[in-house]
């Protein structure tokens, strides 16, 4: 319990650091007034704009206002539209999740079984073929895969519309683009985790005691192999929001990734800040969940944590 609490506090601290860093990096990068009003804008208008958005205040003042705002869940207004930035972001979030969640599920459903299959045929031609395919899958950049798919299905065959969300068919190309990479990573990782566990002596013990290979796999190999995989799944899940920037831009997907690129180009600080915070927060949250679940799954880690807390108690007492 104490471990969980300290872990949560640390997560909040990380989030604060992230928010501060984003704020300063953006504030120092350019003047939003000139960016939005254009270089030829009259000085009075620029001045009025700065008044309106408190851009004349000192950096520290703005920082404090900004952080206080975050604490009260007030993320400010968009320079471009004047609407609350959070609303703009929230209207785009569903599209991103609608793309990324199915992508994640499909990648797991393809990657893990393929990895297991390859590990069980370790060293054979099938194994090498699968592993080559998975390397190609994640080594070829998404923008290249996306453009090739678009050329094939939209330009050449004319089967699919190249951009936006029109029907369920719109999901096909973006998903293939990302699943090819993610499933490849999952497959490789699953395979190497499996191969390691497959040579563990506990398997000999159980087979010698009468288990057949299928039972050995189910009771011993898979549970142990899936532990390291959890980290990878966490990494993907933490990237749900920010992971599709490139793909969204290629296929003109009306999601957060595209909004991020647009907002950065326009120096729409509030929007950029929210998106960066969201990406960071989801990464931190998922990491926290993964860490917590390790304790549930692996008794060794549970014990280590228990003992370290005991030591802290002794030290403070």
């Amino acid at each position, binding site marked *: 319990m104490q471990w969980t609490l300290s872990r949560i506090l640390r997560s909040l601290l990380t989030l604060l650091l992230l928010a501060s860093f984003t704020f300063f990096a953006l504030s120092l990068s350019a003047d939003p007034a000139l960016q939005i009003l254009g270089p030829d804008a009259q000085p009075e208008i620029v001045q009025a704009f700065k008044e309106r958005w408190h851009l004349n205040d000192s950096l520290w003042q703005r920082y404090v206002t900004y952080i206080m705002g975050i604490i009260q869940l007030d993320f400010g207004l968009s320079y471009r539209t004047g609407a609350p930035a959070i609303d703009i972001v929230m209207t785009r979030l569903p599209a991103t999740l609608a793309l990324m969640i199915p992508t994640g599920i499909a990648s797991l459903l393809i990657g893990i079984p393929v990895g297991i299959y390859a590990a069980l045929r370790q060293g054979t031609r099938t194994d090498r073929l699968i592993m080559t395919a998975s390397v190609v899958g994640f080594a070829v950049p998404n923008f290249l895969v996306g453009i090739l798919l678009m050329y094939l299905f939209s330009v050449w065959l004319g089967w699919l519309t190249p951009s936006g969300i029109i029907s369920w068919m719109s999901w096909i190309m973006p998903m293939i683009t990302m699943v090819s990479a993610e499933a490849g990573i999952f497959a490789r990782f699953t395979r190497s985790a499996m191969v390691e566990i497959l040579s*563990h002596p506990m398997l000999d*013990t159980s087979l010698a*005691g*009468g288990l057949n290979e299928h039972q050995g796999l189910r009771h011993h190999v898979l*549970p142990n192999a899936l532990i390291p995989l959890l980290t990878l799944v966490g990494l993907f899940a933490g990237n749900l929001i920010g992971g599709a920037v490139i793909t969204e831009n290629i296929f003109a997907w009306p999601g957060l990734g595209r909004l991020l690129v647009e907002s950065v180009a326009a120096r729409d600080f509030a929007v950029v800040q929210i998106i960066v915070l969201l990406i960071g927060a989801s990464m931190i949250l998922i990491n926290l969940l993964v860490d917590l679940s390790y304790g549930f799954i692996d008794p060794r880690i549970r014990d*280590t944590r228990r003992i370290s807390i005991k030591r802290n108690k002794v030290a403070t007492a």
Partner: protein
Amino acid sequence: MTQQIISNISDLEMAKPRFAVSDLCISFDGKTNIVDQVNFSLNKGEIFGIVGESGSGKSLTCRAIMGLLPNKATASGSLHIDGQDYELSNQAQLHKIRGSICSMIFQDPMSALNPLMTVEKHLKLHLSINNQQSSRNACIHLLKTAGMSNPKQYLDAYPHQLSGGQCQRVAIALAMAGKPDILIADEPTTALDVILQAEILDKLTQIAKNTGMSVILISHDIGVISQYCSRVAVMYKGKIVEQGDVDTVFNHAQHSYTQELIASLSLSTLTHLGRCDGAPVLNYQSVNVSYTRPDGSIVKAMQNVSVNLHKGEILGIVGESGSGKTTFAKIAVGLVKPSSGGIQFEDKPLSFSGQRGKKLRQRIQYVLQDSLGSLDPRIDVLSQVIEPLTIHNVGAPNQRRDKAIKLLERMGITASLFSRYPRSLSGGQRQRISLARSLILQPEILICDESVSALDVAVQAQTLNLLVELQRELNLSILFISHDLSVIRHISDRVVVMRFGEIVELADTHSLFNTPKHEYTKSLIASLPEFNRPTEPTTPFDTPDLMVGE
């Protein structure tokens, strides 16, 4: 009359082998046989030993019987169990006998169990798979059979919470879950200390006696085999070179390899050379060392240790793993700093800083257990031995090569091996090269940390022999660390017995082994497997120059 006939018949039944392996061959490439024409048989309730060095094929033989050969290996031959015949070439078919007829335990108990499952889950899984009642009580009963005292409290424990000995008992319980007729024990106690070894092997013997289960005991330790087995097969290079009852095989060894094995056991002939009268070179003064583990618990690796290493002495340090032996050695080379207390080298505090410190490094050398790990895999043998001279800038550069060659030849490494890389040498050769790397600097103190423990007994004996010869020639002081009492007894002038970081007993070798004072030392010595030594031991150590000290 009828009674007698019946009893005769049952005698016959008993005498008839219930388990026989015939013409077992194992091959990895389909051409050369790694295991060749192995035949042996087992009676009911018998403990049958297989002895041989690592790589002699003893483990492969047993894996073939269990149908657990590695994928690339193919086997031929047949297995006869209680009137049933099985083809060993059909490894998949052997699944039927695993668990219920034949079961096996392995060398490393700490990794024999699934780290994510409690002891109870393990037991229940194995019980239910073998169609036995899998209640909590059945689990407790099974653990009790395997010699676990107070089994109830361990049911909910995870493997990492158990000691090596407890893990091995759980592994035995798992192997017993299907009530097998035959249990194969592949080096079951090699990873454990002698006291646990005795407990576990006694338990196996008792189980065999009570249940009529036959045991195949594989070991490299001839003492273990001679104490616990009725019959033995000696394996060498994939063949059984000798087979028969233990007394006959060991007392009238026919094959040269068996003779060598037995000779290497007579290590104790070279004890007590009594050379602890030199000036102290290394002086531990109430040294304490404590570590903080990653989990936060504090380990006292050394507690109040005071001892002197004298000039020209071999000081043996013995103890089970975790007793602080290695810390003992690491302090002497500055790899571990004492938390309190001090260590003096020739009456000056030991310090490795500055120019004098560098000089000191040259004078204190360290030989590790893992010879493959301690040599650079990409440098040939000769250059490995020249390297220390270059590092310490000893002698003229053009003479270093000759010096290295001379030393290597003295150590029995022939010129044909000079251009080889560590991987293509045998363990014994590699360890001699590690030794040469240390000795070429003409150190005054040599620290051997389990330096011969990874070697097979015969090679171990040769290496020890060489070490003692060199020690005499160079008047070296040696800190010799080992968990193996017989090695310690063979080589040391004085012995330090360590436990939980403390010195339990310190005495000269002769009195320590003959009149041990501390209870722990007594139980260590009592647990050593007894070997009925042949009347006329043929020992390679009876060389005159070695016996000068006596």
